[in-house]
């Protein structure tokens, strides 16, 4: 009886995951029996499911709680990221509708796979154990591999899916190997236990350290940080645009959350060790992301390098390893997801007059004449990603730099700002193409009112008006970071 009660309490705490898991199976059955014509109702059904799951987020107590014998953690940190994940997944679902109908791949599996991926991400951010983490990560990744190859008639999409799968499987293997090393040297996979055991000194910790390096490498692949970034441009370019939008948003945030949880929650005792690794990865990502994007002629590839670059900036906060730094990372990811989803919404609107999607920079030329609204939104996202005040995108960068200066990481901060100047160059190039160049053939008019509304909302959020969101957002991020420490 007592066992049943604890089980109930655990399931209750994990309501979000429970609802998602049960709901997605029901929706899958509906899809199987009704076929592809159920795409639209299924999409809105899954959005409703995500909203329903979101309503259950407040179940988690403010001070945090664990379930399933410590395998699962519900706290302010996981709640914050689950809001991002659920919202990001819902938006990615809706924005794909016109594309799915257009590209004749209107298969009903799209919303199902996306929801499964979201379920995996929720598990990732709530993981209290290396194995829960691994299971969540695999669920997320396997759904993502299929999504990358979703446009199966197009070789580019299949190639992206295959590339993502092979490299992703390798990264998972590295991660798992790291987990086994850590288990071997410490005898546990629980974060709480590890936090008490690992102190960064002694012989046994050397093995743990090697395990940690493997774990961090595996996660670095998921957040596409240098030197594990190679898949990003290819997959973004090859995957259908809505899928790339999804990849760039919620999964990045979830993987970053997982990184924070592992680094601070489990291996907080070895902070001095992983700080060096994170610093290196951060600098390398910022520089490579900034330089790599310069020569790109494809907007999606450019956004891929932009995401590498931004992950580098976010990692500055983790390198600081202070509460301010973690707050900065959490805040950064929230704003980043909106900026990147907005940018991809703008890319989705890039279709020639006969409705064919295009992705080249050249096709954007002079967009400000034919579609002033779209061009303005695009420009807002670019200036925001470049981190030019007073746009909202400046403030996350500001907060991680502030954390770095407070932690006396001056070199990291200086490299960071210099990289931001280099990266400004290619963001400016997009704006230059939009505003200064002679007009290219006009795009097809906007086809989806929903997408236009989403695009407008994202643009307003990233504009100076969004600065009004700083206070509540940073306060929530601060609570999330505090629950981690």
């Amino acid at each position, binding site marked *: 009886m007592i066992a049943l009660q604890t089980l109930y309490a655990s399931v209750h705490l994990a309501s979000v995951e429970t609802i998602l898991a049960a709901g997605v199976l029901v929706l899958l059955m509906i899809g199987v029996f009704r076929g592809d014509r159920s795409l639209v109702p299924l999409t809105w059904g899954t959005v409703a499911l995500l909203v329903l799951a979101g309503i259950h987020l407040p179940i988690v107590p403010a001070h945090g709680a664990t379930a399933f014998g410590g395998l699962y953690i519900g706290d302010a940190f996981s709640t914050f990221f689950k809001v991002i994940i659920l919202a990001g997944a819902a938006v990615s679902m809706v924005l794909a509708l016109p594309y799915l109908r257009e590209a004749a791949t209107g298969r009903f599996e799209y919303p199902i796979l996306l929801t499964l991926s979201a379920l995996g991400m929720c598990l990732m951010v709530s993981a209290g154990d290396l194995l829960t983490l691994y299971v969540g990560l695999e669920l997320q990744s396997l759904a993502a591999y299929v999504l990358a190859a979703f446009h199966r008639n197009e070789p580019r999409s299949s190639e992206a899916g295959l590339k993502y799968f092979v490299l992703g499987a390798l990264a998972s293997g590295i991660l798992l190997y790291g987990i086994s090393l850590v288990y071997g040297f410490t005898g546990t996979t629980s974060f709480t236990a590890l936090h008490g055991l690992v102190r960064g000194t002694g012989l046994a910790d050397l093995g743990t350290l090697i395990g940690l390096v493997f774990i961090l490498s595996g996660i670095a692949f998921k957040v596409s940080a240098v030197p594990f970034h190679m898949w990003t441009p290819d997959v973004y370019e090859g995957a259908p645009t809505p899928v790339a939008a999804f990849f760039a948003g919620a999964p990045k945030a979830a993987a970053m959350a997982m990184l924070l949880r592992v680094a601070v929650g489990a291996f907080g005792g070895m902070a001095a060790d992983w700080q060096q690794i994170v610093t290196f990865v951060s600098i390398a990502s910022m520089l490579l992301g900034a330089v790599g994007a310069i020569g790109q002629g494809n907007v999606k590839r450019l956004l891929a390098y932009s995401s590498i670059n931004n992950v580098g900036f976010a990692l500055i906060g983790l390198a600081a390893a202070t509460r301010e730094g973690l707050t900065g990372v959490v805040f950064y990811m929230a704003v980043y997801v909106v900026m990147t989803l907005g940018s991809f919404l703008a890319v989705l609107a890039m279709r020639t007059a006969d409705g064919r999607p295009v992705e080249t920079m050249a096709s954007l030329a002079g967009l*400000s004449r034919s579609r*002033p609204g779209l061009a303005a939104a695009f420009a807002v996202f670019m*200036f925001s990603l470049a981190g*030019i*005040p*007073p746009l909202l995108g*400046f*403030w996350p960068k*500001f*907060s991680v*730099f*502030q954390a770095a*200066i*407070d932690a006396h990481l*001056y070199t990291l*901060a*200086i490299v960071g*700002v*210099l990289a*931001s*100047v280099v990266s*400004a*160059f290619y963001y*400016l190039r997009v*704006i*230059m193409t939009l*505003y*200064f160049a002679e007009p290219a053939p006009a795009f097809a008019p906007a086809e989806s009112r929903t997408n236009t509304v989403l695009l407008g909302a994202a643009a307003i959020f990233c504009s100076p008006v969004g*600065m*009004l969101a*700083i*206070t509540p957002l*940073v306060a929530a991020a601060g609570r999330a970071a505090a629950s981690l420490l």
Partner: protein
Amino acid sequence: MTNLPLLSVLVLLPVIAALWVLLAPGGEDARAANARVTALVVTGLEFALAVVLWLSFDIASPDFQFVERVDLFAPFLSWHLGIDGIALMLIVLSTFLMPLCILASWQSISRRVPEYMAAFLLMETLMLGVFAAQDLFLFYLFFEGGLIPMYLIIGIWGGARRIYASYKFFLYTLLGSVLMLLAMIYMVSVAHTTDIRALLTFDFDPAVQPWLWLAFFASFAVKMPMWPVHTWLPDAHVEAPTAGSVILAGVLLKLGGYGFVRFSLPMFPEASVDLVWLVAVFSVVAVVYTSLVALVQSDMKKLIAYSSVAHMAFVTAGLFVFNRQGIEGSIVMMLSHGLVSGALFLCVGVIYDRLHTREIAAYGGLANTMPRYALFFLMFTMASIGLPGTSGFVAEFLVLLGTFSGSTWLALGMTTGIILGAAYMLYLYRRVVFGTTDKPDVLAMPDLSGRELAILLPIALAVLWMGIYPESFLAPLRAPTGAILARLHPVAAPPQVPVKPGRPVLPGSAGR
């Protein structure tokens, strides 16, 4: 009236107008007309507000006035505004130039008028914000935000090499600013406040000051611009439309000088004194070198751009001699240069609109065909040279007075610049206005229109006012300059300890 948040209205009104201009419905012509009228009315209103501000300003007080504070963006920054006399004068200058810029673009801009006017209105918000900000990061936000509209103005409505120029402008200034940002973050992390007034009295560790000073210097020197980081300016000026050049020369260049006055001098007095050689060398090289470069230019706008660099060198030289004449002279130089170089660019714009070339060689003998134009151009040329009776004289005289008591050698270098300045301006004037010409297109050029007269006349009157009765402009500067000198004084000139004759102490009496 007293309850009205005057500064907030002043700062936010243009951006609201910009949104209206962009979003107004109607056909292309109707929107363009609406944009022009709205922009003119709003900038005129802004000037009126600035005059109200000037009239109700308490000149005697060195304190920041019209202070408003709302903690809107905690924990990063707050909406905190307030002005002292220096900021007040620069705000008056900016709002004065703005309607004239709009008028100058009335006909010459025919493409994408609503966007153009919106960019200018946004520009005005950001410039006024820089001068009115009382929060360190609010200042940075406005300071760097100004890059966006200027980038668009140069890039969309500029000349042939506009894309190169817009990039160069943006990236140069951004590179300088980000280093300043790090210094600001450091300052806040040490002083635990973003309030500029509190930071003004905070004593930073003298060991760290040089680094902070250099970071700020990187930003302001680029913005100013000082030799050797001035190269973006001629490119930006040449490619920008006339009104863009006016705003660039008239107001944006003042941001660097304002930054030195507001931050570098009072916040890092030790470093300012230690690194004064750097500023002095840069200033003298700038004034001589850029004057010589100006002498050989064949493009009118480029010539005036180089003359701007030379004049800005006067500002830096005057600021860093740490005496009243120098600092007040520098600020008057900023005001005067804002008017005069703005007017000179407008003069170039007048003939550019007629002939569409900036080549000096294409003109000549304008005195015969455009006598009114020749008169105004002469007056601003003389003001640029620093003829007594014009604003330029007051500025140059005060700066030279200041530098002379600081360092004779510095004064010698700066005076060389004045002589060279007379040379290149007179040479320019002779080639454009005097002589005779047989070029049919030059002969066919009509004299100033009513609109152009309405633009140039107010500036001419202001230049004369400042030249004949500078007290109106110097009075508000006095108290804030005093405050800066009070910060600098303990460092710049160690107080002489008066020798007191002591009474002899008798041996054995010490114990009593």
